[in-house]
């Protein structure tokens, strides 16, 4: 993946001078008892932007992702999100019902393990259709047609629509999880090591597919990965985390080509050259 000829640049973000951020994160801190998860994290995410959070295991990147996606309440700090009506709302001030609606409709969450994001015993079509029903679709024919369309978009043969994901390979399951997340046209998608545990060739196909979908749908993405090649392929901007803190942040190719902090230099120099 680090070979020059297989790298590519992520698509450009449409840029407007007076753009408002989609997500505004200020001073987010999370303790587990006395133990620090992450501390004093602040950043903005703009529409159409892909942000990679990189760092080794235990650096706090998954804790941060869970705080941002309202799966884990922060100990301190604020996370504001621009709702579809344009208003900026503090996520932890929303009612539980509003937050659930947001997660079902406007957001997606792609887990490292497809089993955490899919229902393994119901059909592929139902996995995709369920999210549609959650936003009010009731017409069976329409739901099935949309599900078929999405299976095609993630390159799953449509004659597999009635098979459960249990019968799918790891790469197919991950593509199905992505279809399930994107079918409601979310504006923000969280991804936690989406390519972890997959063969390299399967990873390449998944990454290429994700890159296209993100660009076509104009998604904003926050992706947690320990794989710098994935970050280079998909993200515009990188945050490097260590010991629960953001130690370096910037344009992806700048942080990877000219890392400044000792730990970032260590990370970049540790990549195996394929």
């Amino acid at each position, binding site marked *: 993946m680090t070979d*020059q*000829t*297989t*790298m*590519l*640049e992520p*698509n*450009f*973000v449409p*840029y407007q001078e007076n753009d408002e951020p989609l997500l505004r994160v200020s001073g987010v801190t999370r303790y587990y008892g006395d133990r620090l998860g992450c501390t004093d994290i602040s950043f903005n995410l*703009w529409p159409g*932007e892909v942000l990679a959070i990189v760092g080794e295991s235990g650096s706090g990147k998954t804790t941060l992702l869970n705080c941002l996606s309202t799966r884990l309440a922060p100990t301190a700090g604020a996370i504001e999100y621009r709702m579809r009506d344009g208003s900026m709302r503090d996520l932890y001030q929303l009612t539980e019902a509003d937050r659930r609606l947001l997660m079902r409709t406007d957001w997606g969450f792609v887990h490292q393990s497809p089993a955490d994001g899919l229902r393994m015993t119901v059909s592929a079509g139902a996995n995709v259709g369920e999210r549609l029903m959650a936003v009010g679709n009731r017409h069976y024919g329409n739901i099935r047609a949309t599900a078929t369309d999405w299976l095609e978009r993630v390159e799953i043969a449509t004659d597999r629509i009635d098979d459960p994901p249990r019968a799918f390979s790891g790469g197919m399951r991950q593509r199905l999880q992505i279809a399930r997340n994107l079918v409601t046209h979310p504006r923000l998608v969280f991804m936690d090591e989406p390519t972890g545990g997959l063969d390299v060739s399967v990873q*390449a*196909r998944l990454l*290429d597919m994700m890159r296209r979908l993100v660009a076509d749908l104009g998604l904003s993405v926050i992706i947690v990965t320990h794989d710098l090649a994935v970050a280079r392929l998909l993200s*515009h*901007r990188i945050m490097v985390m260590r010991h629960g803190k953001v130690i370096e942040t*910037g*344009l992806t*190719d*700048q942080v990877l*080509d*000219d890392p*400044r*902090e*000792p730990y970032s*230099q*260590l990370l970049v*120099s540790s990549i195996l050259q394929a």
Partner: protein
Amino acid sequence: MPVRLYLNSVGKSFVMHLQDGISLPVVSNVDFAVETGECVVLGGPSGAGKSSILKMIYGNYRCDEGQILVVRGPDDIVNIADAAPRRMLALRQDTIGYVSQFLRVIPRVSAVDVVAEPLIGQGADERTATARARELLARLNVPEGLWSLPPATFSGGEQQRVNIARGFIANYPVLLLDEPTASLDAANRAVVVELVDEKKAQGVAMLGILHDLDVRERIADRIIDVTNFRQAA
């Protein structure tokens, strides 16, 4: 001629934390301007810092000292040395192009689409961009049979020519040329010279690294010796 790009007392060094924090000076007090319609070539031996200067302008490398000013529009002058990442991405979309030796292949995307992409990114419709891409691939002697294939399996020279087409297709007011003619044959070198001349006529400001003396002679309006910008040890 109006100035498009101005480097003002630019300095750069690398601090290598993994090697006991030693500091490697690259360049200092880099001071020059590039005007519209001219091609300036950076000279000096390998390791003198030519590539680092191009990379600082494109934002791959940070600029530690000084300013890198680029004119984006009549009332919009951006200092790349402190531009926010989003600002830098916007500059790469509409203002600064980079032609390098290495093609970054996009898996499963055809050569013609790889070439057309930057022009579409600037708002051209797909048909216009594709037509222009075909024209450039033809001029650079990429066999027509390859145009609809992803370039991953092309020879090194074919990939390089696809990348040159990609670099020249869009309308960037500033173009950085990083050894675009290295390992090209004479016929294709001549095409690159023509492309550079066309960009000059359109008023594009170009800054390049060219070891090929024959090409350099034909396109350089000025040569700036980078060794003058080395830091005193």
